[in-house]
């Protein structure tokens, strides 16, 4: 009957299927790279146990260093690349802005890359960037989309001899020390952030009352860790009752809907709303506002500008900052210092190769200081890049 339309539709489907299939085989290619890279590498012995051995192989890591300070890059030859998901995310935009500030401070420009939550695109971009030029002077400061993306990225950087700093996502069994030019992996202790905001909220509630929790996407480490932090705080505060925990998938719109329903479910018993990110906190505040519940404490994580404003205005109780501009700057700074020979990656301590960085609790007291994201360029001096280390990844 409407065969033409159907044919078009089928053609479209086919095209998409083919594209997907192509991506699939691409991934396959990525998976294959490590083994081929391992066999051609200068020190194959260290690579073999890397996938399973984890941090036990640290002692062998040093042997891998084929590029000591001798052939360091000239500062002007260094190419700085920052890659995040999306510039529409204020946090990730501030990350790239911080990278720009660092780059300008050393007379360079940062190449800003975004891949929009698309792992395949992220990897393709990196491969593309590393396919030409003097890649041994390239510095990558990368936010891997998921934990699964970190190894392929590290392998691609290794093959090209580029300097790499990754942040947030890394599987526990992937050791930075097994890669001679993967300088550092920086992350934040989600348990700590979840706990910090929970304690602040409980304090604001006077130590008793009911709360509801809005979690992030349940499959993510960040969601699990942050919620674990809430549970730790709950265990220490018997006066607080967790009425309900739901997921709003990090989404502002979904948080509004979910909390609206939870308000019908629990009503005035809700004295506090714990959310795993600020987007959900903002959605939650709209739901509370619509229900006329203005005295409910709301906390979130990430310190997005709007949340910081809300904290400053007293509409929101607290949020936690990982300091995006610092992350964007320091990742490039570590790589840059390594590239010009100021930092010898092989001699870095384990705490500097993979670490949790300090995070800052933002309350009404200090919100004004965070209203405009800014960087302190002295923190990017080669001697200071590890000043914010709070401890090894746990």
């Amino acid at each position, binding site marked *: 009957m409407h065969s033409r339309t159907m044919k*078009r539709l089928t053609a479209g489907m086919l095209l998409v299927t083919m594209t997907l299939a192509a991506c699939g085989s691409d991934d396959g290619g990525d998976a294959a790279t490590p083994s081929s890279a391992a066999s051609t590498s200068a020190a194959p012995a260290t690579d073999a146990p890397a996938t399973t051995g984890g941090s036990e192989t640290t002692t062998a890591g040093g042997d891998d260093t084929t590029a000591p300070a001798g052939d360091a890059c000239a500062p002007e030859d260094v190419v700085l690349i920052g890659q995040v998901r999306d510039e529409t995310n204020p946090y990730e935009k501030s990350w790239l802005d911080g990278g720009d500030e660092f780059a300008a401070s050393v007379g360079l420009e940062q190449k800003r890359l975004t891949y929009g939550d698309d792992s395949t695109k992220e990897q393709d971009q990196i491969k593309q960037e590393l396919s030409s030029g003097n890649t041994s002077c390239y510095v990558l400061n990368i936010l891997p989309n998921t934990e699964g993306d970190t190894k392929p990225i590290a392998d691609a950087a290794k093959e090209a001899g580029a300097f790499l700093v990754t942040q947030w996502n890394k599987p526990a069994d992937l050791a930075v020390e097994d890669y001679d030019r993967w300088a550092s992996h920086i992350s934040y202790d989600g348990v700590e952030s979840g706990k910090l905001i929970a304690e602040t909220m409980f304090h604001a509630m006077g130590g008793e009352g009911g709360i509801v929790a809005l979690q992030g996407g349940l499959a993510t480490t960040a969601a699990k860790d942050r919620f674990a932090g809430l549970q730790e705080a709950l265990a220490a505060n018997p006066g607080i009752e967790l009425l309900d925990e739901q997921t709003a998938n990090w989404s502002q719109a979904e948080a*509004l809907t979910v909390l609206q*329903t939870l308000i019908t479910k629990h009503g005035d018993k809700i004295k506090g709303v714990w959310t795993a990110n600020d987007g959900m906190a903002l959605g939650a505040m709209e739901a509370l506002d619509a229900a006329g519940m203005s005295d409910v404490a709301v906390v979130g994580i990430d310190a997005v500008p709007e949340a910081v404003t809300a904290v400053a205005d007293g509409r929101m109780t607290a949020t936690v900052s990982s300091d995006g501009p610092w992350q964007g700057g320091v990742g490039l700074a570590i790589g840059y210092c390594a590239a010009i020979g100021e930092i010898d990656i092989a001699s870095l301590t384990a705490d500097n190769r993979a670490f949790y960085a300090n995070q800052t609790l933002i309350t009404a007291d200090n919100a004004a200081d965070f209203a405009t994201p800014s960087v302190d360029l002295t923190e990017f001096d080669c001697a200071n890049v590890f000043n914010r280390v709070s401890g090894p990844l746990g």
Partner: protein
Amino acid sequence: MSIDARPAMRSTGVGTSPRRLGIFARRRTANASAVRARATAGERVLKWGPLAALALLCMFFAWRAERFATVDNLKNVLDQSAVLSIATVGITFVLLLGAIDLSMEGIMSACVMVGALLVMNSRNANDWGLFAVIPVVLVGAAFGLANGLITTRLKVPSFMTTVGMSAVGLGVAQLLFDGDQPRVLDRPLRAWAIGRVFGFTRATLVAVVCIAIGVVIQRHTRLGRYATAIGSAEDIVALSGVNVRRYKALAFALAGAFYSIAAVLLFLKQGTGNDELAVNVNFAAITAAVVGGTLLSGGQGGVLQSIVGVLIVKVLENGLLLLDVQPALQRAVQGVIVVGAVVAATWPLRHRLRVVK
């Protein structure tokens, strides 16, 4: 195929040549009564099945979930359905054509940002108030029209056109977003979404008006009737002298206009313009439409059926949340019930859906 298509067909003189008419002819030949009886029974299930499913769901939740059957909660469910309802009215016209529209997220995101930056907001000095709706609807309709023109004139499958257009819309939204979400400061304007009339949010009432407009367009305008007819038998409609390409393009434009209204409600409700507000709404709308009986094969269902689908989806979401179902399980249960509902609704029709793609 559907009831609504026939007057349109008749008025354009179709029906004079039985051999070319295929299924229309069969339905008009009284002798083929067996076929006809089965078809109408199937149609009835398609029309009333989802409504029965909705009633069953409501009864189940009223029985199992303590707070479900309270007036406040039902008002909530209606409020939560408002944005999706309007968007689904829009996509229904495209689905009736037998085409698909995957550009909703992009169009809505662009409209959200355009709107949020035109009303009184924290980013610039604009203060268009309610007049901001006009440019927003124009933007939505323009995106939709572009979908329609590219699909019909350049012969690109709607699937691809609209995926591309979605990316364009998201790009525009991201450019406008620029990392800093504008807060809507115009409280009286926001009352259009969150203010209450007789306890219902105004968003609910806006949605009801949009649904009514959708029903009128579907039943009483050429655009609506041709959309159904084109979805049933495009070649025949074309042979009968209807400018199919024009009406297809218009249906896409109409869909875009509805998305833009949904977008306005969305950002007024959220109080901010954020390019991620519309995430997932596209598939929610398609799911709702199909669950309600507006099938992807075209020519089946309509605005009211799709709205029943929206309510099924939203009641399910709300009920499972109230039931203390483990969060991780809720989504899975939703999926199972949705697929089950579609299978049940289309079961009597399966002999007629000869090809499933």
